[in-house]
């Protein structure tokens, strides 16, 4: 994997856009892409540019936003209005929250949201505690067999998650040596989430880039490895900790197959699994309302942490 975690570079086009205001031209010679700036500044070039831009705006909005618009407005329509042909583009009754109320009661959405938050938070805590310390040990303390351990952890990236699902399920039913059954407990989500080779990879890579002198100076002053980790390494590593945190939490929230297998109890389900298992028995408008509720947290996270998420994606989103 050759994916270095770099700070998001300002897209060149943004720089170009800035100067556009002054020159009144579409393209400047500061940075160029496939299309020649001269061609873009001709009359024909500009016409083509605006047509392409309009096409992209319309098609992307129709393909990616319209389905979400349909979902949000669908949840505000009554059952009769939903089955009406042709369908209404705007909900007739204005904002009708009945289907949300119905979904909340039918599905016990409050409990489901609480469950999912508990699983995501716990997974995040375990991932932080376990993967950060491990990556720090592998990067800075370099114990004997460190390379072998790292190799073993990175090798797990080669195993596609779906094919390991059955043996992992069987393992969770009866943990080797301990003989504990984790089925229907949060541990079945928390602990496997921490065994994430990709996090180890990202964190170790970042720790490797911290200059040795910095840590040695602290060591001279008598700081213990734990103290160095806590007071020096962690504050420096905030960007990568942010990326790992967001991805861990979002992944648990979005996951479907694993919670489907290990949390079959209705009281313990995640929101995704519960919506699916009850989808057959619910009227379409309250089902759609439930879908909206399940997606709001991820959309909010995306709004807030957009830059981190996109940086993490291009840095190392190339996970198998």
């Amino acid at each position, binding site marked *: *994997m050759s994916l270095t975690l770099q700070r998001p570079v300002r897209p*060149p*086009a943004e720089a170009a856009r800035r100067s556009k205001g002054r020159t009144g031209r*579409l393209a400047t010679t500061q940075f160029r*892409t*496939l*299309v*020649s700036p001269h061609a873009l500044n001709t009359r024909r070039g500009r016409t083509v*540019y605006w047509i392409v*831009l309009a096409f*992209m705006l319309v098609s992307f909005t129709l*393909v*990616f*936003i319209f*389905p979400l618009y349909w979902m949000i407005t*669908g949840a505000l329509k009554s059952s009769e209005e*939903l089955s009406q042909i042709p*369908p209404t583009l705007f909900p007739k009754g204005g904002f009708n929250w009945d289907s949300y109320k119905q979904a909340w009661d039918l599905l016990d959405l409050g409990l489901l949201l609480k469950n999912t938050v508990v699983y995501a938070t716990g997974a995040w805590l*375990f991932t932080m*505690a*376990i993967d950060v*310390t*491990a990556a720090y*040990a592998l990067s800075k*303390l370099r*114990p004997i067999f460190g390379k072998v351990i790292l190799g*073993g*952890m990175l090798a*797990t990236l*080669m195993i*596609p998650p*779906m*094919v*390991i*699902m*059955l*043996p992992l399920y*069987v*393992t969770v039913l009866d943990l080797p040596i301990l003989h504990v059954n984790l089925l229907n407990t949060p541990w079945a989500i928390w*602990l496997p989430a*921490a*065994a994430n080779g990709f996090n180890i990879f990202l964190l170790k890579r970042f720790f490797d880039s911290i200059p040795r002198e910095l840590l040695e100076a602290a060591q001279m002053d008598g700081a213990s*490895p734990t103290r160095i980790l806590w007071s020096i390494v962690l504050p420096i590593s905030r960007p990568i900790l942010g990326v790992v945190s967001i991805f861990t939490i979002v992944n648990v929230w*979005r996951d*479907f*197959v694993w919670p489907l297998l290990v949390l079959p109890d209705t009281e313990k389900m995640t929101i995704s699994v519960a*919506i*699916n298992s009850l*989808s057959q028995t619910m009227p379409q408008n309250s089902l759609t309302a439930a*879908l909206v509720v*399940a997606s709001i947290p*991820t*959309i909010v996270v*995306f709004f807030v942490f957009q830059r981190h998420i*996109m940086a993490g*994606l*291009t840095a190392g*989103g*190339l996970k*198998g």
Partner: protein
Amino acid sequence: MDVSIGRQARRRRPKGRAAVQRNLTAYGFLVGALVCFALFSWYPMVREVILSLQKNNFVSAPIWVGLDNFRTVISDSAFWTAWINTVEFTVLALFIGYVVPFFSAIILNELRHARAYLRFVVYLPVMLPPAVSVLLFKWFYDPGSGLFNEILGFFHIPPLSWLDSSSTALVSLVIVSTWMNLGSGTLIYLAALQTIPSELYEAAELDGAGLLRRLWHVTIPQTKLILLVMLLLQIIATMQVFIEPFMLTGGGPEDATVTVAYLMYQYAFNFGNFGGGGALGLMLMLVLIVFSVIYLRVSREEQH
């Protein structure tokens, strides 16, 4: 002499002790990860092999049955259907899911307006929980009042039965899956395009290369490795397709959407045959590991 040796030894001893101390601390830090990886990553790989070689009902003691599970699974009429469907799904998903993001990224890279909006919009479906996207599309596919047939009707095209017909069901699954995943590829290609040095385009232009020739001789060679890496990753990801057939069709109609991962699930949880499921998982794993190994080679090459 004596003194110098003694001094050396004295100097080495604290160093040795420090090394032991360092190793102890390091393993103290590592113990949590080692336990987690051992239990939830390394052991399950071994467990998969054991599972596939045993008959196990999780009540009485498991029996070693050699390759019996493999024989049972392969002689199942759904076995080859599942592989053909999986390959068909992967190929169809590549047609849209591989070409469209690349060209979208090329166009996005040329635009000077609305870039932030377009990037945000294309990645939004990737953030949604997959279960939400799939259930949303299930509603769109509804033959009665679903959105898609309404749109077709608007253009006076006869309605399709989407998930209910064996000729359109697999394609319908590909559409959902592509919609959910298009964004990450687009943004990754966009990042790759931004690293292409301007001089290359300028030089090509001075040599009289037109737009298409610049695309062919500059853009594609410069992004060749990332294109290859993404191809392999997409093959690995789509060949594991499970949630779409599980939630939308249950493998039907007439096994038209049974995939290998779905068959694996069915063996374990519907037929109670974990041995058969394990055997299928192992076969899928072997196929996918071939792609993983190529992927590793390619990405190592990219690093140099």
